[in-house]
């Protein structure tokens, strides 16, 4: 399930930034110094180790993939082996300054509950989602009549780990309906933050939210 992810991760790496992934760069910018951070679906711990290094944060992760746990321990990232849907109940209210859900929200069974839980245990949450409705995807649907395969969504229908498909607008509406404030919205296309046309042009978007 994770093997295809690396292709996309390579794509997201910003070569000029000592090989740091562009989404990681913007997430790190959103986090204040000396914070407490929980990463849900932390993968191999790359982002958390950078957060610890650059922002002097106390960090913890939850990850379901056994092989990724070894990498986390190697990086000195404290990690719990388990799934996101059930892993949040362990923490008390507002335990963390930030709860990160980067590229993981679309893979959870109950995103609504996970966001609510993330905003319970965290003062703020950082959510990174692939944009299912950018121009490229729209054109593929319209002209090819096929389920789109894009930079943000590199999978075929039969091998995608994604359970949920949403756009930037969908996520904004989701937040508005629940009185969740979006503090910052960072839309990324071609390795850069784009100033406008988020829903039409971005591959992925990052949201800093709080309730």
């Amino acid at each position: 399930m994770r093997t295809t992810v690396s292709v996309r991760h390579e794509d997201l790496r910003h070569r000029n930034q000592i090989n740091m992934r562009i989404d990681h760069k913007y997430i790190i910018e959103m986090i204040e110094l000396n914070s407490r951070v929980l990463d849900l679906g932390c993968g191999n711990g790359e982002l958390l180790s950078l957060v610890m290094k650059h922002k002097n944060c106390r960090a913890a992760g939850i990850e379901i993939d056994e092989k990724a746990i070894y990498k986390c321990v190697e990086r000195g990232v404290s990690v719990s082996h388990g799934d996101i849907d059930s892993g949040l109940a362990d923490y008390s209210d507002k335990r963390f300054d930030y709860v990160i859900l980067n590229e993981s929200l679309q893979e959870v069974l109950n995103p609504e509950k996970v966001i609510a839980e993330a905003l319970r245990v965290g003062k703020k949450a950082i959510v990174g989602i692939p944009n299912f409705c950018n121009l490229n995807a729209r054109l593929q649907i319209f002209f090819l009549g096929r389920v789109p395969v894009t930079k943000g969504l590199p999978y075929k229908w039969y091998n995608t780990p994604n359970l949920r498909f949403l756009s930037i607008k969908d996520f904004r509406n989701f937040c508005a309906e629940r009185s969740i404030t979006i503090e910052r919205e960072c839309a990324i296309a071609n390795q850069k933050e784009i100033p406008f046309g988020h829903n039409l042009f971005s591959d992925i978007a990052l949201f800093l939210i709080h309730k």
Partner: protein
Amino acid sequence: MRDAQFVETQYFTFAHPPHELILKSGVKLGPVTLAYETYGQLNADKTNAILIFHALTGDAHAAGCHKDAKDPGWWDPMIGPGKAFDTDKYFIICANILGGCKGSTGPSSINPMTGKPYGLNFPVITIEDMVISQKYLIDHLGIKKLLAASGGSMGGLMALEWSVRFPDTLQSAILIATNYKHTAQQIALHEVARQAIMSDPHWNKGDYYGRELPAQGMSVSRMIGHITYMSERSMEEKFGRKLQGKEKVGYDFSHDFEVENYLKYRGKSFVQRFDANSYLYLSKALDYFDLSEDTDLVGAFKDVKTKFLIITFTSDWLYPSYQSKDIVKAMKANDVDVSFIEINTSYGHDSFLVEIDGQSKLVSDFLKCVKGPIANNCECPA
């Protein structure tokens, strides 16, 4: 190769009357001897010490070879130069537990009051007593703070107890295939093993020293133990329905199947190497232990400062993962720094002795990132 060098068991005796060890039960015990071995060098400021706790029937001989001995210590694949517990970097200590029969004071030791083995006159001991006795050893070695404590099964339980009892003396702990209290099923399995021993007429209410041993009872108790240490799958893979030394089943009650023969062999060899009374005392100590007896589990970790790595195995049905997950949950509620992994393997509870590759990587990486006095040597990239 240091492996080629021989290791020796050493002995430390303390709690001489009138300064006996006061046990959890209130009974006094002394003098107390602990057999222990060390591997590697203690550094000048005594900050690289790691205490290894053995499991129920283990001993102080965790690594290396004794002179004239064929087999290395029980965790030799994990302890040595360049191994997970790297003796080029760390000073490793392993002591035979109080109540054991491998050189430390236990029911088979001579009672100084009578000049005869204690037998059932040996006081009932607890996991807490075992941990406290090893604190004396660590003090004796001049170590104020352990870099780590680790063990599998009963050993993990002792490392956990240490972190709660002596929170200022332990930087990190690696708990493997362990729990924090025995469930009814775990107690029940131990009770069957104990009854097997106690119903052997040669057990003679624990007074069998110098006479015929309760070999049959011990053998049966070990057979039960071995079944619980394996998983259904590992037994199936190892034995299946293979027959032992015959082409077809005998339709009598001789041994037909390889698995029968294996259990019989394990049972027999146990009689040679272990003391029946020690088995009774130690298994009872495990059953008595409950970290949440005075408070709930969350409360138990209130003062804990240790950084933890907790490892479980998917096929371990004796100490199933959910028990360790309960520990992780209670630790998180206390803001304790904990990492948890459930390793996918078919070896059952025995995995901590045989699933070496995964554990080695986790342990060596984890130890490199333990913050504290050796932080200057920390190779941790973060």
